[in-house]
């Protein structure tokens, strides 16, 4: 009987744990954590490089074929991003795509930065293209290129690209909650 009860409690706890995971927000994850777990994922950071070369792939290697930023993040004269990347994924060819596919400007480089550094940068109008908090929220939750991370298509062998560790809805909710709370940036080191 005791064993049965223990077993029942364990199962119940497990189910609760699973239920909590299913909402993808464990009690200890703040909206900031949820948002940042997405924004620091390779699907985002690959195109927020610190230098003038995008990264690509699950291993974030430097983009093949010497692909470069160019003057405005859209590539160079005869090798624009749009030379290969279209407004939507091309699963037949394995080439990812989203509207206005291009590199985030250098001021929005995230590669090698901590979550707090990225957040501060995001909120700084001198480095975020003059965006207000509302603008930032709109960009983070509605921009098709940003949201591409949750619809990243398949690679050249038809293998689906890895998505960020939180669902798109959880991310969007987190961004809005974070902004509504005044966009707090935690002081803890990360």
């Amino acid at each position, binding site marked *: 009987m005791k064993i049965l009860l223990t077993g029942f409690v364990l199962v119940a706890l497990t189910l609760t744990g699973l239920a909590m995971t299913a909402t993808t927000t464990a009690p200890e994850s703040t909206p900031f954590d949820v948002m940042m777990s997405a924004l620091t994922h390779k699907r985002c950071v690959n195109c927020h490089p610190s230098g003038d070369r995008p990264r690509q792939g699950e291993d974030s290697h430097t983009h093949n*074929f*010497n692909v470069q930023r160019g003057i405005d993040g859209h590539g160079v004269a005869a*090798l624009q991003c749009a030379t290969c990347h279209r407004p939507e994924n091309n699963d037949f060819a394995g080439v990812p795509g989203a509207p206005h596919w291009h590199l985030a400007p250098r001021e929005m480089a995230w590669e090698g930065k901590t979550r707090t550094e990225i957040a501060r940068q995001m909120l700084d109008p001198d480095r975020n293209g003059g965006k207000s908090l509302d603008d930032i929220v709109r960009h983070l939750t509605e921009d098709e290129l940003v949201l591409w991370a949750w619809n990243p298509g398949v690679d050249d062998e038809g293998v689906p690209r890895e998505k960020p560790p939180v669902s798109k809805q959880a991310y969007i909710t987190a961004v809005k909650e974070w902004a509504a709370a005044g966009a707090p940036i935690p002081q803890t080191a990360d």
Partner: protein
Amino acid sequence: MPTTFTINNRPVTVDIDPDSPLLWVVRDTLDLKGTKFGCGKAACGACTLHVDGMAVRSCAFPLKYAEGKTITTIEGLAEGDNLHPVQQAWTEMVVPQCGYCQPGFMMATAALLNKIPNPTDDDIDANIVNVCRCATYYRMRKAIHRAAEISGG
């Protein structure tokens, strides 16, 4: 659903699945074989053609995006019997060996010269990234400079 566009100054309408890569529409539906298949994954550049003057890798360009656009392939680079400066330079320098990748390179080069009439060697390095296995790169570089010269760049 038909797609209508202009190719090499000729208007065409094709009724093919709009998700088909433009490469196969060009090669098989329109029987223009100059644009080549090398990888189908936008990696090698053999399928390069121009869409509204911009270099595009047609193996990764669905037909639907061609609607209303002006497409130029290698067959349309020359004007009648007059070869394009890039083709003239390629001829002068005797660049091709097997020749399979060359149309893609010529289209990429023509697109480059449209934007940068007198490219430096560094410009060439950054812009021309197609793959040539015969490795005709040495002459190609000279031909690109020569093409710029012929164009008056």
